[in-house]
Structures are given as C-alpha cells and as structure tokens.
C-alpha cells in the first residue's frame, strides 16, 4: 500500500485480480489485451495459481465455467472478437448462476475491425449478447487505477450474486500507463475463507454417507414449469442488483449546470478535460459517468433534469449505444444530443467542447 506503481491497465488489472484472490485464469491472446494474458502467464506460477492458454476463447470461457463450478475465483479476458466467442459460455455461466469475472478490452468493430480503443460492445455487454434472459453486471472504468480497483469489486459482486461480472474497458485503458495504488494481497486465511464460501452449492470433495452431497452445476431445466421458476428467480436477483449496486460518478454537478453530459469509460475521461476548460470560461457543465453500465443509473440522470438544464449531451466511442439508455432516463423531457467517434478514433477535448458549446 502507499507506493504507487506505474503500470499499463492490462497489467494493473491482472495484478489486482491476483491480489483479490484470483488463482485461476484462462484466456486466448488478442490485441489490445495481450499484456493481460502475458502478465498472468508470468505471475500465476509465482502464487501457485493456474494459467492456461486455451485453444480458443470458447474453450477459455468453458474452463472458467468448470472452475467457477468449483467455487473458486476465476477470470478470463479478451477483446471484442474474442468476447463474441465467449457469449455462449457467458450465457451458461449466468444460467447456472456461477461467479466469474470477464474482462473486455474493447477494440474497433464490427468483425475483425481494428485494434484501437472503442466502445462498440456496449449493447453486447449490457443488453444480452448471449442467448436467453440473463444479465451481466458490467463495470466501466475510466482510469487505470479504477480498472485495477474493479478487479476486486468484480469478484465481490460475482460472489455475492453468483453472477458473471464483466469489466468493460477499452484499448486505451488497457495500453496506457498510469500510477496505480494496489490493495494488499489476500492472506492465506482470507483465501481459505473465500474457498469455502460456496460449499453449499459448488463441486468439492465429498464425505461419506449420510453427508454425501450431489451438487449439479447446470443450466438445463427441461420442465417448463421448473425453468419458469428458475428464470423468475434470476429476474428477482437482477432486481436486487439494480436496487443495490448502481454506481456512478458526478463530475462538476451543481445547480448552476447549463448542460448535462453523460459519458462512460474513456469517452468520459476525454470529456472531463472539456468540462474543466469550459468551467474556467464560466460555463457550467455537469457530467454523470455511469460506473456500472448495468445496472444503469437511470434515476441519477433523471434526477438531474432540472428546469435550468435544456439539453443532455452524450459522448461515446461508437455510433450511439448508451445514448438509448440516456433517452430512457430523460424520457423525452428535453433533447438528447450525441457525439460519437468510430473506427477506433477518439474525439479530442476540443471536439467535445465544441459539441457542448453548440448545445448551451
């Protein structure tokens, strides 16, 4: 603690995951997240952990499924095309209610796209992606420090709700270096506690009769009435998550705000500079930065639509995905404007400033 280390986001989140008790990691290389898998390949053997370079992202997520079924803290990471391949496994993990952490260091798409930062996987992460009625808890960092800190919170949320959690990052946060303050490693005792927390449902060594257990790690329910119950139960769990876990940052929010900005991740980071400059020029702009993009801070946005605010401006690194959620929050009360950049291109603070000024 205390001493900051200068690190790439990809490496920082890997280090933080290990410190949070992750001892199993399965993945397949892809740019711009390869430093993450490389870091894990170096560090896991040093903590008696497991690192396996899988034959594909499909295999990696299914290794995660198997290890998560054993109740252990397990993680995988990839970038956009690889995340698409993981969607089958993510749906099964959600259906079987297993805790697991998945990191997406997004790049430009669709298809092979490019290897520059983008936010084009927002829909996939927050609205489904895989088949069936399920939700991922999705955390969106905007600094390397926050990216690293999210490893710990992702595991805690995954364990608490027995649900997969995704950290929706991007190539910029993965590749850039910033000083990071790490939490201490879990102690042996803490690791042992963590290992036992899921004993009532996970796969683990058995005892003899009469205590012999038979635990099923499973998403199949062939009887529609049983499946109905299961999916309703999932729905109630998601309601609970929406009630308890919405996180967002308020930046320069005040009653003087003329415009409200909504942006997440790297986009929010760029807009912050624009907001600071505008403030110096006497223009008050507030921003809500969703930290959980699911569950989404609809109410936090709705509550900021005061009579003084005439417009909401949304910035994203895509053609306009989160803006749909902002529109839901604003509910037609005032216009919602949008600036997006695609193809792995970032907008500059100047472009953000211009866009905001157009709407003051």
């Amino acid at each position, binding site marked *: 603690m205390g001493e900051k280390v200068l690190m790439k986001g990809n490496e920082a989140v890997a280090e933080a995951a290990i410190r949070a008790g992750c001892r*199993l990691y*399965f993945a397949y290389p892809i740019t711009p997240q390869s430093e993450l898998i490389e870091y894990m390949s170096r560090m896991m053997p040093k903590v008696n952990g*497991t690192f*396996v370079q*899988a*034959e*594909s992202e*499909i*295999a*990696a997520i*299914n*290794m*995660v*499924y*198997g*290890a*998560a*079924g*054993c109740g*252990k803290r*397990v993680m995988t990471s990839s970038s956009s095309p690889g995340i698409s391949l993981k969607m*089958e*496994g993510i749906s*099964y993990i959600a259906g*079987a209610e297993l805790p697991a952490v998945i990191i997406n260091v997004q790049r430009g798409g669709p298809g092979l796209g490019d290897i520059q930062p983008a936010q084009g996987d927002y829909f996939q992460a927050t609205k489904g992606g895989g088949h069936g009625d399920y939700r991922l808890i999705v955390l969106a960092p905007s600094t390397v420090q926050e990216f690293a800190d999210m490893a710990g919170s992702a595991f805690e949320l995954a364990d608490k709700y027995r649900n997969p959690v995704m950290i929706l990052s991007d190539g910029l946060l993965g590749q850039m270096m910033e000083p990071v303050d790490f939490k201490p490693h879990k102690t042996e005792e803490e690791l042992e506690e963590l290992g036992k927390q899921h004993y009532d449902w996970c*796969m*683990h*060594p*058995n*005892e*003899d009769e009469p205590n*012999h*257990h*038979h*635990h*099923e*790690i*499973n*998403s*199949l329910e062939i009887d529609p009435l049983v499946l109905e119950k299961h999916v309703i139960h999932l729905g109630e769990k998601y309601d609970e998550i929406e009630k308890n876990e919405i996180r967002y940052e308020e930046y320069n929010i005040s009653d003087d705000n003329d415009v409200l900005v909504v942006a997440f991740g790297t986009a929010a980071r760029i807009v912050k500079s624009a907001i600071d400059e505008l403030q110096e020029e006497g223009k008050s702009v507030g921003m809500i930065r969703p930290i959980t993009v699911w569950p989404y801070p609809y109410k936090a946005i709705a509550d900021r639509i005061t009579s003084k605010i005439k417009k909401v401006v949304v910035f994203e690194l895509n053609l306009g995905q989160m803006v749909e959620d902002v529109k839901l929050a604003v509910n037609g009360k005032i216009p919602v404007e949008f600036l997006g950049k695609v193809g792995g291109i970032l907008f500059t603070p100047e472009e953000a400033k211009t866009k905001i000024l157009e709407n003051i």
Partner: protein
Amino acid sequence: MEVIAQRPKSLRDIQFTYCPGCTHGISHRLIAESIDELGLRNKMMGVAPVGCSVFAYKFFNFDMAEAAHGRAPALATGMKRARPEMHVFTYQGDGDLAAIGTAEIIHAANRGEHISVFFVNNAIYGMTGGQMAPTTLPGMKTSTSPYGRDEKDIGYPITACEMLSSLKAPYFIERVSLLSPKEIIKAKKVVKKSLQFNKENRGFTFVEFVSTCPTNWGLDPIKARDWARENMFPYFPVKNFRDKSLNGGE
C-alpha cells in the same frame, strides 16, 4: 440373504431416460461400478454432454456439471485445475466430441489434462432424432443423409482413437465394444484401468465405446448389435491404441 447385484453407489436412484436396448445405460454402469471399486466416489466429479446422455448429471451420485454442446473437455480442464485433489471425467457422444467439440477434445488431450474421457460412438445423433454424425458410416442413411453418407461429398467418418493417437501426451487410449456380455466384461476392465490411471493422476485417458442406437438406426436391439458388428467393427477396430503404463511408463 446375499446380495449379488445392486445399483452401484455411484449411481443415484433415478430411472435412466434411455430407450430400451440403448448402450448408454451400460456405459454409465461400467463407469459407476469402477468408481465404486476404486474408492473414488468421494473425490469424483463428472461432466455431462449435450446429447441423449445430457441427464447424466442427474444419474451419477457425486458432483456433476452439465456442459454446453462439445465443451465438456474445457469444463473438465477448469474443474481439474481448480480442484487438483479431485478426479474428473467427461462423458460425450460422437456429435458432441467429434463435431462441435473437436477443438476442445484435441487440445485437452494434447495438454495431457489429467482427466478421463468416455466417448460413446453410436454413429448418429441420437437426441435430435437421428441426423448424420461425424462417425456416420459411408453409405449409412440418416435423417440428414437420406441417400446415404456420400464420402465424396461430406468426407469419411472421424476415427477419434486414431486421431488422438497421433498426439504425444495422451496416457491411455482404447476402443471397446458393448455388444455382448463378454465384450461388456472386457470393456469394464478397460474403463476401470483408465480410472485407475486417473486416480494416480497419470494423465489423459480416453475410452471409446462402440455403441448402438436401436431407435434411430430403426433396428431392434438384437439386429442393432449385429449391424454394429458387421458395419462398425471394420471401420472402428476394437483395440488398445496407447498404454504408457506398459514399457515401464513413458
């Protein structure tokens, strides 16, 4: 009273979902008996596939995971790595293992994962109603090869034991058949041997069962048995392909 036959402890008191004359039940029993005899039940985990044996996760009496179609070897990899103190097997059909899950089985075998794989080859997709499998024989009619499998168009059946034998890591590979009591007794020995190796964490073991699917072959169980002997044996020879315990180990 002396009990001379009873349900193995490793099977739960649940009715199988298999058709009369199906060999899935026999393979389950051989695996369960071997696990009991090796005293492995309390440290065993299994992975059920997608196929007729999808409910295997209910049948075996220890912790079980149900995989997505073809992904059982990847799950088993995660399970064994997460709980090295336990023992893991997968149970997979030919569509599951030799079509959609080809990458997973080859790479689990190639890593020499310390797991046992039981492969049920019935030359057809049972669960979905008799479509062509990667192991369907040349000329064999199925609901998606209504004119018979044309190997010029769709290729030859995949021989899993032979394919995996080209890899260096697997510890034990053998093909057995379940077509008569004598063959079943022989198969039991092979199943038990593979699980014994598993118990000793020696490496990747693979046992293929030449099986029948009377329902989708459209034959009664006796005719299905004869058909398998005549048609499957030439293509899928019953024999040992690899046993690293011989020749003083590796």
